[in-house]
């Protein structure tokens, strides 16, 4: 064992060797720039490799003389070789790795940003170094491998200097998460920020920002005099109303479930699944089926009362109804935990102190629910701000920021700057709401869970409150059931309101399969393309999202390092950023080198990872904080390193969290629209954007049929999750708590 202990700290550096090999392979073997097909088809090997411009590795680009700026990478790859001979405790070992890792990484990024498809990216560089004879495109596999090699050489150097107890895995993981969050959250957002200041002829100007920022279409208050209001006011008012209404409704539901003798509590809990599996605009479609010009209710009312059908539902009322329906279950989900969490003994204490039920509720229960109420409001507010599907379907002349951003980018006006300014306003609102929430909650402690068993019982709701709560919940439930029935029913109706015969036509159009004589299947349905793409992209991004989320959660719960708070803020930031903003910032940032991935499947996968990562992080943190830290520590003292500990101890105990993160990110990737709508391309079309396209062509039948199919697929996914989690839970995870008590 002594010998083993020595090799561990001696001059063998398996991880370093691995990353050096990766770096060298990236520089000498793999194409430096992005190739047209996937690298793994190896088609590039037959296209004039290694000398052809399109597929050459970095080294050949460098020596061919045209792209001399790639050659310094070689020096930075040679440097770390000198560290191999030295022991880890040798200060020179760490120094060499840090210097060459940092220089290499820095150089790679600097050259990537300085030289683009038109030569120098910055005028001052051109004037300084003279015009450049060549140009470069988006980085490919080779560049990516070299970049990761430099990054991990750098982190190993930092680890060797003693950071985080010299732990290579942890330092590497921190470096990796920081790098990808910077590249795919901070960089696009900052990039968008600057593009708000760019004029038509590519100069920077504050004036252009103010001109766009003070636009009447953004801040106009015409609606007070019967005209139209600006999109910013519309969005803000809508989001506040939606936030308030969903919070109140969510609270009503939570109270019914926890504090009444209501019999069908499980049924109500099932409602929480709805928002996860419902594509975002489906509710809007159902509302059109009910209240649109040829909607059921409209015609019914018209027949009975002789009121001429109007288009009243298009605009704020329709959007409001749709969003409230869509987001109330989210508020319910948040509030049920909080309402259950209020310690019954506090309420019992209040009652023994002569407060009646109403006074207890008002003075103890409700104030203790404040954080939950604030969270529910915040979620409703952000979801409403970011919602794209419902305003698009139902908005009419009611402009909101998310749709305005979309039209600024894809519309005839194509105005990047305007999109950026609108996105900034939107981002300002959501971050403002975050800040306001913190301010409101202040520093008061709302902790009511003591960790010890709480044997009390929640008091029942006071009568005066119970009746209206029941009424609200009843009406809402009825309405929701109607809506979802309409969706299913609508998918079988030939042409809503015009020809009400039942038909499978829409399903056939979307999902038909032809069998030829030879038994070969041909997927002739119009939806197959987008459907398979969606499943593929969702299937690829789900495990990646879960992995990044869990590693981040591990770092946040189990490790201490400088800057941990800003690290946490950075990883959670993308949650506060509306999808529309992410979408805009991604196309602005990633359709030019060095990272040129617009129009590929990669950009979709990446956007899903960073949109859904916060949920994985939260799920991971929640379950990891239930695992006693002494489990990790005992593994470490038994000789496992932190990677082995993560693999052998933490991961097996986190199975339920992993599955939850997997399914959640899978389902979210299938229903996402706000960011996706900007990022899809002809080749990579997603189900949701395909459906939106059908809606815009007034092809409601097909859209609804497709949505119904998606709901079924996702229900199956969620059901599968319940099954799997249920099975891994048996008796094992709880065992940790028994020896402690």
């Amino acid at each position, binding site marked *: *064992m002594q010998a083993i202990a020595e090799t*561990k700290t001696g001059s063998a550096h398996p991880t370093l060797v691995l990353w050096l090999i990766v770096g060298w392979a990236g520089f000498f073997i793999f194409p430096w720039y992005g190739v047209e097909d996937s690298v793994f088809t190896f088609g590039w090997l037959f296209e004039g490799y290694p000398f052809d411009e399109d597929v050459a590795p970095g080294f050949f680009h460098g020596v061919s003389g045209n792209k001399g700026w790639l050659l310094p990478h070689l020096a930075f790859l040679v440097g770390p070789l000198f560290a191999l001979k030295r022991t880890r405790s040798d200060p020179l070992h760490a120094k060499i790795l840090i210097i060459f890792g940092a220089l290499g990484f820095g150089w790679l990024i600097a050259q990537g940003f300085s030289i683009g498809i038109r030569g120098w990216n910055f005028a001052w560089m051109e004037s300084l170094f003279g015009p450049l004879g060549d140009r470069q495109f988006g980085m490919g596999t080779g560049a990516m491998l070299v970049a990761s090699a430099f990054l991990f050489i750098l982190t190993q150097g930092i680890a060797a200097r003693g950071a985080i107890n*010299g732990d290579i895995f942890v330092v590497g993981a921190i470096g990796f998460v920081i790098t990808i969050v910077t590249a795919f959250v901070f960089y696009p957002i900052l990039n968008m920020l600057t593009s708000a200041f760019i004029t038509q002829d590519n100069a920077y100007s504050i004036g252009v920002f103010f001109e766009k920022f003070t636009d009447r279409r953004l801040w106009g208050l015409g609606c007070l005099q019967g005209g139209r209001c600006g999109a910013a006011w519309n969005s803000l008012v809508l989001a506040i109303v939606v936030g308030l209404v969903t919070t109140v409704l969510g609270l009503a539901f939570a109270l019914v479930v926890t504090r009444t003798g209501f019999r069908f509590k499980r049924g109500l809990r099932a409602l929480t699944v709805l928002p996860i599996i419902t594509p975002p605009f489906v509710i809007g479609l159902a509302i059109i089926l009910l209240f649109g010009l040829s909607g059921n209710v409209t015609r019914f009312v018209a027949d009975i009362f002789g009121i001429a059908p109007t288009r009243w539902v298009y605009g704020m009322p329709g959007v409001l109804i749709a969003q409230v329906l869509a987001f109330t279950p989210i508020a319910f989900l948040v509030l049920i935990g909080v309402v259950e969490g209020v310690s019954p003994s506090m309420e019992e204490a209040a009652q023994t102190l002569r407060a009646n039920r109403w006074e207890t509720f008002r003075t103890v229960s409700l104030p203790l629910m404040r954080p939950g109420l604030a969270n529910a409001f915040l979620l409703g507010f952000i979801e409403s701000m970011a919602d794209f599907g419902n305003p698009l379907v139902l908005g009419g002349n009611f402009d909101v920021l998310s749709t305005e951003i979309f039209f600024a980018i894809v519309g005839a006006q194509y105005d990047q700057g305007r999109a950026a300014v609108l996105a900034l306003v939107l981002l300002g609102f959501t971050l403002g709401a975050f800040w306001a929430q913190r301010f409101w909650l202040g520093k008061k402690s709302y902790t009511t869970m003591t960790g010890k068993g709480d044997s009390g019982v929640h008091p029942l709701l006071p009568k005066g409150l119970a009746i209206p709560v029941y009424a609200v919940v009843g009406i809402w439930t009825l309405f929701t059931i109607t809506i979802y029935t309409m969706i299913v029913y609508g998918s079988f109706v030939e042409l809503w309101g015009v020809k009400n015969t039942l038909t499978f036509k829409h399903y056939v159009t979307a999902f038909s399969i032809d069998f030829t004589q030879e038994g070969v299947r041909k997927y002739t349905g119009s939806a197959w393309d987008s459907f398979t793409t969606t499943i593929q992209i969702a299937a690829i991004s789900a495990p990646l999202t879960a992995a990044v989320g869990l590693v981040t959660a591990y770092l946040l719960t189990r490790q201490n390092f400088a800057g941990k708070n800003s690290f946490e803020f950075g990883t959670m930031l993308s949650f506060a950023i509306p999808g529309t903003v992410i979408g805009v910032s991604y196309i602005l940032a990633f359709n030019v080198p060095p990272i040129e991935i617009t129009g590929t499947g990669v950009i979709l996968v990446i956007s899903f990872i960073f949109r859904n990562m916060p949920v994985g992080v939260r799920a991971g943190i929640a379950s990891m904080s239930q695992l006693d830290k002494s489990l990790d*520590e*005992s593994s470490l*003292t038994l*000789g496992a390193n932190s990677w082995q500990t993560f693999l*052998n101890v933490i991961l097996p105990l986190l199975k339920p969290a992993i599955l939850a993160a997997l399914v959640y990110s899978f389902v979210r990737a299938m229903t996402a629209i706000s960011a996706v709508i900007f990022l899809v391309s002809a080749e990579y079309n997603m189900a949701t954007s395909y459906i939106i396209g059908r809606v815009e062509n007034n092809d409601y039948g097909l859209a609804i049929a497709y949505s119904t199919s998606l709901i079924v697929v996702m229900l199956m996914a969620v059901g599968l999750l319940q099954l799997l989690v249920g099975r891994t839970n048996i008796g094992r995870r709880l065992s940790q708590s028994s*020896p402690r008590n």
Partner: protein
Amino acid sequence: MLNKNSKAASVSFDNVSKVYGHPSTGVRAVDNVSINIEAGTLVTLLGPSGCGKTTTLRMIAGLEMPTNGTVMIGDRDVTHLPATDRDVSMVFQSYALFPHMSVLENVSYGLKFSGFKKSEIHDRAIAGLNLVGLEGYGDRLPSELSGGQQQRVAVARALVLEPQVLLFDEPLSNLDAKLRRQVREEIREIQQNLGLTVVYVTHDQEEALAVSDRIIVMNNAVIAQDGTPRDLYDAPANRFVADFIGEANIVDCQVFAVEDDVAQVELHGYKLTLPARDSQPGPSLLGVRPNRIIVGEPGATNALAGEIVRVTYVGNHLELTIQTAAGNLFATSDDVDAALETGTQISVTFAKNAPVLLKE
């Protein structure tokens, strides 16, 4: 398979401090502590909660890194070495058994990372289980064992690695009182049979006295006293140790002469000659154990006059509270038939060599 451990190594701390937060303004959990633990001995870190004993233990394990100072295990400087790379294993208060692994897998866990062959891992793990008396329990899950059995698995898991140093962090605190005595004797027996270096953390002074070769009492991040169990009980260095280990009456006294390490002490007219223990003439403190107080007839010469204010019968002895000029004294008397009642006037003397002069 598990022979007398030839690898047992010494542990030494040289001016080690651990500060949480900013080095100058943060909380000092361990303040400039120097310790020397000889190979093959069982040394206990004893103290009230928050005294820094667990932090000290975790610095030996490599789970915390010292802010200043040097930690040596054997001849090797391990100050900056993480837990993984130290040849130390630890038994946790919560046992920290991996709930998803069987008992045998738990015990084999550390061996897997030590470069042993598969068959040897199995043999050693079985031998470890036999050593703690858990033959045949290998296939069970930890949740299927009783608390005491889980504790033994944790010990076996640490033992099979034949570490240079074995650490125990309050290993008995989750066991009931009877089991505690049994398990601590087993731990002591294994330690002596295998010649292990063991560092043991507890806040239970009785447990510490029972198992240790040496006890290091810690208070407020520093060492209060370091010595054998008998040293600590019979000659506590200061008020804290006297009070923390066993029960003690601590009274103000006057030292009026010190000569050749012998001090002349007066306690309200009661004159005593005691080992000086570095004390200087002037006011001082005197500590005396309750069972070393002798109750005599009233009016005796060179004694304290007192009155019994409370008598409690607790079965095998009497507990007395005696009001004297030096304050209330707590005494025990084995003579349960003595006619001692509340209000009885008595005189109080101390057994020879019983009282000790204490520093504040």
